[in-house]
């Protein structure tokens, strides 16, 4: 007879194996049905495909094509599959998307929301892999270690271009990735507590010009787009701001509400509830877009004539050697997913629909190159210590 511990530990072991399987689920993924349509040869140009996707999106909006979020398939998805030319044999299995930030953050929300319909169009699962650390660079570094077969891609944000300009990484983001699509543009706004002594943005700038370093502004971490926007603004006014970086959005907001900092440079969607509740108010829109729904009276920094060197965008990239046909396919899939109701509702809640930010792969690369030059110039101008950063 087996010892009694054997029987007991067997049942416990079974329980444990079940938990292990659950944990492993994050890695594995179900196999979806293979796509029905296969198109080959010199198909339509990218512009034509995009135009066709737009036409389908209009039909969905007009209610002419049935669309049901979360379903297996519907008319809208079938129509999109038909117009998007598919590379031979791709995707034959689930595609992994590395997200360089934790669950629940802006990048995570963007990727998972656009992925909702993207995976339906592809007919394959998307595996979301959150690999946080060093403003997304740990995740990006991990992407570069994977095969460039189009089955591992990553979502990227502005920090990647900045870190490239500063030379903190062993690779070059702009030179080494294949740009798929850029989908989110900046929605940052300069916020102050409702009872702040600064009535307008000019008040704040005036005070800052007379008292260098006395106006404290918070943004997301060191070497971020927030910091470079402030550096540019400070240079224009020949003064400087006291930049206090916090990594967590929670820390930033409580620092503003607790009176530790004067101004917060933060995305609209994250804090809009506090604005509607009357706890904070906007001084100026951080870029060149005026958010009519928030307050049309408030100016944008660009309207006021100040430079806006960079803003927070989000998009998808792949390792550089990925087949261009796959890159185009992924562009079309994510572009189409972004035109469908599931993602558009998400965008509307976070004012991303106003900010736009869409660029196709080619423009995304060109824009990133320009941004890298701009940041490098700013970094040099301010003695941003790149020597030290290079180790």
């Amino acid at each position, binding site marked *: 007879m087996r010892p009694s511990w054997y029987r007991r*530990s067997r049942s416990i072991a079974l329980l444990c194996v079940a938990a292990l399987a659950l944990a492993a689920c994050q890695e594995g993924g179900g196999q979806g049905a293979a796509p029905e349509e296969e198109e080959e040869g010199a198909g339509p140009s990218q512009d034509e495909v995009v135009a066709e996707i737009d036409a389908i999106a209009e039909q969905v909006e007009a209610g002419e094509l049935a669309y049901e979020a979360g379903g297996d398939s519907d008319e809208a998805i079938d129509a999109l599959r038909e117009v998007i030319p598919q590379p031979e044999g791709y995707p034959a299995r689930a595609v992994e998307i590395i997200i360089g930030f*934790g*669950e629940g953050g802006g990048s995570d929300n963007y990727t998972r929301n656009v992925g909702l319909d993207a995976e339906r169009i592809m007919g394959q699962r998307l595996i979301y*892999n959150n690999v946080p650390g060093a403003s997304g660079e740990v995740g990006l570094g*991990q992407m570069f270690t994977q095969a460039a077969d189009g089955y591992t891609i990553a979502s990227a944000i502005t920090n990647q271009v900045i870190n490239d300009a500063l030379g903190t990484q062993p690779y070059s983001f702009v030179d080494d990735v294949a740009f798929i699509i850029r989908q989110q543009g900046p929605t940052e706004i300069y916020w102050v507590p409702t009872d702040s002594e600064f009535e307008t943005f000019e008040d704040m700038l005036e005070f800052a010009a007379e008292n260098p370093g006395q106006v404290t502004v918070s943004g997301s971490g060191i070497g971020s787009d927030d910091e470079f926007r402030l550096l540019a603004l400070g240079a224009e006014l020949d003064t400087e701001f006291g930049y206090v970086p916090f990594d967590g959005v*929670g820390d930033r907001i409580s620092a503003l509400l607790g009176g530790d900092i004067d101004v917060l440079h933060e995305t609209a969607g994250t804090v809009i509830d506090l604005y509607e509740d009357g706890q904070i108010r906007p001084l100026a829109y951080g870029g060149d877009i005026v958010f009519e729904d928030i307050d049309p009276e408030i100016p944008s920094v660009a309207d006021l004539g100040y430079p806006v060197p960079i803003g927070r965008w989000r998009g998808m990239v792949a390792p550089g050697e990925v087949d261009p046909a796959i890159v185009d396919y992924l562009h079309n899939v994510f572009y189409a997913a972004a035109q469908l109701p599931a993602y558009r509702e998400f965008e509307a809640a976070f004012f991303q629909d106003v900010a736009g930010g869409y660029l196709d792969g080619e423009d995304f690369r060109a824009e990133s190159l320009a941004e890298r030059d701009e940041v490098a110039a700013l970094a040099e101008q301010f003695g941003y*210590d790149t020597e*030290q950063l290079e180790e």
Partner: protein
Amino acid sequence: MDLFTGIGSVLEPFHLLLMVVGVFIGLIFGTIPGLSGITAVALLVPFSYVLGAEAAIIMMIGVYVAATCAGSLAGTLFNMPGDVMGAATARDGYPLTLQGHAGRAISIDITASAVGGLIGTLLLVLIAPQFLRIALRFGPPEFFALALLGMTSVASLASGSLIKALLAGTLGLLMATVGLDPVSGAVRFNFGLQQLQGGIDFIPAIIGFFAVAEIFNSLYRGTGRGRYTAKDIEKIPRFALPSWADLRRTRWTMLRASLLGNFIGMLPGAGSTIAAFLGYGTEVQLSRNPERFGKGEIKGVAAPEAANNSAAAGSMVPLLTLGIPGGAVTAIMLGVFILNGLRPGPLLFRDAPEIASSVFGALAVASVVVFFVGLLAVRLLLRLLTIPFEVFSTMVLVFAVVGTFAIYNRTIDLWVMLVCGILGFFAKQYGFPVSALVLGLVLGDIAETGLVNGIGVSRGSWSAFLSRPFTIGTLVIAFILLLLPLLWAYLGRRRRRADTAAPVERAERSSTADEQDRS
């Protein structure tokens, strides 16, 4: 009232089922060394699309509350905690297990968790807005002071040599500096490894320092058999309520720790991670018999447990009232709200009152469910102790590897775990307390960001640290806690001189006196 509406909603059959399933998942993930509550909650994210926000949040809270409680069960039973809070509980829980009191330790462990959870929920409902106003006054300088306060408890973690505890704590602080410099963004101490730019996360480190090191240690010492036999377990009742004596002994401890933990949990940022250590540390410093801690003092189990479960409830306050996450798990929940088209924030109570009250209700119900399920499971949990070492250690290593990787999907974390396992093994051989090291690692980040940003908010001067009431207050408390043990020792010596007779009897009497002093 919100709480009762919420409880009503959670008690609907479907929600209750999800809650119980969530509690089971949480208990399993929390108990298995290497898996943690964060992993379990993150795994539920995709299901939230199907379940909808309310059901998903109820289930997640079940997982969260259960895993918070169970994380320390692994610490108590095997000295293999899966998270920071368990590391504090293991200090006294594991010695109790070694002394054959595992059943007692676990009962009090679960009871303290439930008490902490319930008190935390009550505070959340009743005085959250007032508490929050104070919590908002906690800026970077206060966080720095809080980290100092936490570091005073390094002294309480010393078993034997204080110098060794300080050395271990300092090494922990040093490990916390790996990664990007928060001032200049420069890469520090990453040994040329790109992945280390993200820093050394404390969860892989804890799994290494405790679980992996414990296995190395057992291999070296050669413990071949399970520590408990089936007979020992027969003695434990099926529904293992803690004894009346233990409850009496720990009631004020639980209350104190719950209040402290709840407030610490409310601080956005790192609050909830350090609640357990602060709860433990304060209890040791306040005690007149600090030397008993670390050797199986039941109060040392109750304090961190009550504190961290109360903190779990507290961490919901910034999430619900400001829409900002207080810790890793609430950050994931925030994501779930957003994925489901909700915007957590001050208007959540207006726009989706049912969600807000469900959160309250779920916290309360989860604590009760954990209490009953937990106490029913005590015998089952103790059976884990009868598993022979060869079987058990193999399983634990597998889970340690899977669990460590599953949190952030980074291979570097596996190396961190392994290196920490080896470090932990030698630390144990030479009597360095690894919990002090872990505390240093956890507090290092908080202290550094607090110091740097504290200077930032006072526009480049040090004045913030000397002029803000809450900073000064926290620093003073830290100072007092640091001096208290010396005071007790001094008073004790004076009294001992006064009555030198019958030292054994005196020790007996002082333990009852200790209880009455608290009441």
